[in-house]
């Protein structure tokens, strides 16, 4: 177990390092000189040099990369002497646009993204698993075919199209929901809930469809297993067969795949946040793209990668814990 854990941790570190390197190389090699951008229109070559020196852009690639990496763990200092600025770990640098520390910018927006992600995750898990169960119970009947048709639709609708349609239908035409605006939960819980309702629906619909299909397939497959037949043959009530023998193996994979999807979502639901104007990490990334604010884009990319990699690992560990068939090392 310890060896497995160490292996996974090492693999995780390697992936994260490569993500860092990859992003850094791309921004270092491909993007226009940020110093020119920061300097603005009335710029002298001396000013550009000054900015480059302050940001450490005059150093060779490897040195810059090293400063960036070590900044993540122990922080770094910009400039020298009296006007030196300390950036504490984990330091992702400063935004080229607003001159704020990227770490702070991301932390400020994380709660919104987390709210969106958690709500959507609850919604799709509930909707997906229950619809999948219903579908599996009524396999081949009208309900099953209807749900299957719905899932195909749900999987296919691009979320910004759905977002716009919902907004047009529910807000403009029917007036059932207020126009989304940011209200803190403590101020007006109902308004807060209404605001997040549409983003939750939009974000969860695709995943709900996928989970419905997965649940359906897994349950149907499990019900055909020999041990379920045995349980039935020895006269257990259908309810007990379901609860004790069918559901656990059928739902284990769902729980684990859920971990990964959720981690992926925390890194910012770019499109949903942008369409609804929610000030989350995803919107931050989208805005930074239009402004070509590289440190912020990099920060968000790294955060997203970190969450996905950690999520993957947690899922693997969970899987080993939940499913006795997957035993480490025995898979020869």
């Amino acid at each position: 177990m310890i060896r497995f854990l160490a292996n996974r941790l090492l693999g995780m570190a390697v992936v994260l390092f490569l993500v860092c390197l990859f992003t850094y190389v791309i921004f270092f090699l491909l993007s226009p000189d940020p110093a020119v951008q920061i300097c603005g229109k009335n710029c002298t070559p001396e000013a550009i040099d000054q900015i480059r020196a302050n940001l450490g852009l005059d150093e060779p690639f490897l040195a810059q990369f090293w400063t960036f990496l070590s900044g993540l763990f122990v922080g770094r200092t910009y400039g020298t002497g009296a006007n030196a600025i300390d950036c504490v770990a984990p330091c992702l640098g400063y935004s080229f646009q607003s001159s704020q520390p990227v770490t702070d910018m991301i932390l400020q927006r994380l709660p919104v993204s987390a709210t969106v992600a958690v709500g959507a995750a609850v919604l799709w898990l509930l909707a997906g698993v229950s619809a999948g169960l219903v579908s599996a119970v009524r396999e081949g009947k009208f309900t099953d075919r209807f749900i299957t048709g719905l899932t195909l639709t749900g999987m296919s609708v691009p979320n910004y199209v759905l977002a716009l349609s919902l907004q047009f239908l529910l807000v403009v035409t029917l007036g059932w929901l207020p126009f989304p605006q940011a209200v803190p939960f403590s101020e007006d819980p109902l308004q807060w809930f209404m605001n997040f309702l549409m983003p939750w629906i939009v974000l969860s619909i695709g995943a709900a469809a996928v989970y419905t299909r997965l649940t359906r397939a897994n349950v149907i497959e499990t019900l055909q297993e020999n041990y379920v037949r045995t349980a039935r043959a020895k006269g257990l009530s259908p309810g007990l067969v379901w609860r004790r023998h069918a559901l656990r193996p059928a739902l284990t994979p769902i729980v684990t795949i859920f971990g990964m999807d959720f981690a992926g979502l925390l890194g910012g639901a770019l499109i949903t946040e942008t369409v609804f104007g929610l000030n989350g990490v995803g919107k931050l990334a989208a805005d930074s793209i239009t402004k070509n604010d590289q440190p912020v884009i990099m920060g968000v990319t790294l955060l997203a990668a970190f969450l996905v990699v950690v999520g993957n690992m947690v899922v693997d560990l969970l899987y080993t814990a939940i499913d006795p068939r997957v035993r480490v090392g025995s898979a020869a």
Partner: protein
Amino acid sequence: MTFTPTELEAEGAAGGEATGDPASSSPPASGRRLARAFMRDRAAVACAAYILVVILMALTAPLLVKLSGYGPLEFDQAAVDPNLGGLPLGWGGGIGTDHWFGVEPGNGRDIFARIVYGARVSMTIALLATALTSTLGVVFGLIAGYFGGRTDMVISRIMEFLMAFPALIFMIAVLSALPAENRQALLVVVISFFGWPYLARIVRGQTMSLKQREFVESAKASGASSAQIIFKEILPNLSSTIIVMTTLAVPGYVGTEAGLSFLGVGVVPPTPSWGQMIASSVSWYAVDPAYFLFPGAFLFLLVLSFTVLGDRIKKIAESGEGRA
């Protein structure tokens, strides 16, 4: 053979073609039987028909535009009302005999023409990305599965690495850093770069079980080279898997292209793409719903058609395999 549980699961999710699945190593259904079963499936035929219409639309775009009278880049200030901030004149965003699908608010560009030309962009990118992804996926999957050992380890590590990447955010980061010229080619490359491991993993698994079979042994014994075995013996047996996987991949790429264009890192204006049209309609959705409904409906139907088609082909292929 080692695989992480998550991989196992994803494979199950991709249609149960898990490694070592006995069903997947049985001989595939013949093409003719597949086609006959396909023709009996009304939903599949309808989806295929819609896809064909979109492809035809894309191919004949210049002709269609000549028929409708307005090009995709032509401004028509007569069709919008300058007093209302450029809102299209007339019902449904200016639908009429002049502009079949209405016009864009603001500059009065013809939406029909932009949809038709947008179909070109969307289809080209999605199909090219699918072709490139499939080629890469099949080749690397075959190599990893057939040769095993160190080759397999290297390729598998690369695949794991790519799949652990937050692909969408990274695509955005890469595309935003790259220069804007030749965006369409870049989109294809970037999408394929992150897409091939999903097919490769399944091809690898099936190759590993296929290479144990007698016909491969006998080919080896009769002195066939590795390349001959891979391409003449193993590859034909993978065809139904590849067809299913690629059909199921296309809607994802259509969606990705539209999504990236929607976020402003895809196809560069004024070249139209459906995702980009929807993006520019965001600020108008309340007053001119037709502006997002047309590209939205076309995009949704295209993704839906490919998804349903892939789903149906998969079912037909699976039941065909079961019978054989």
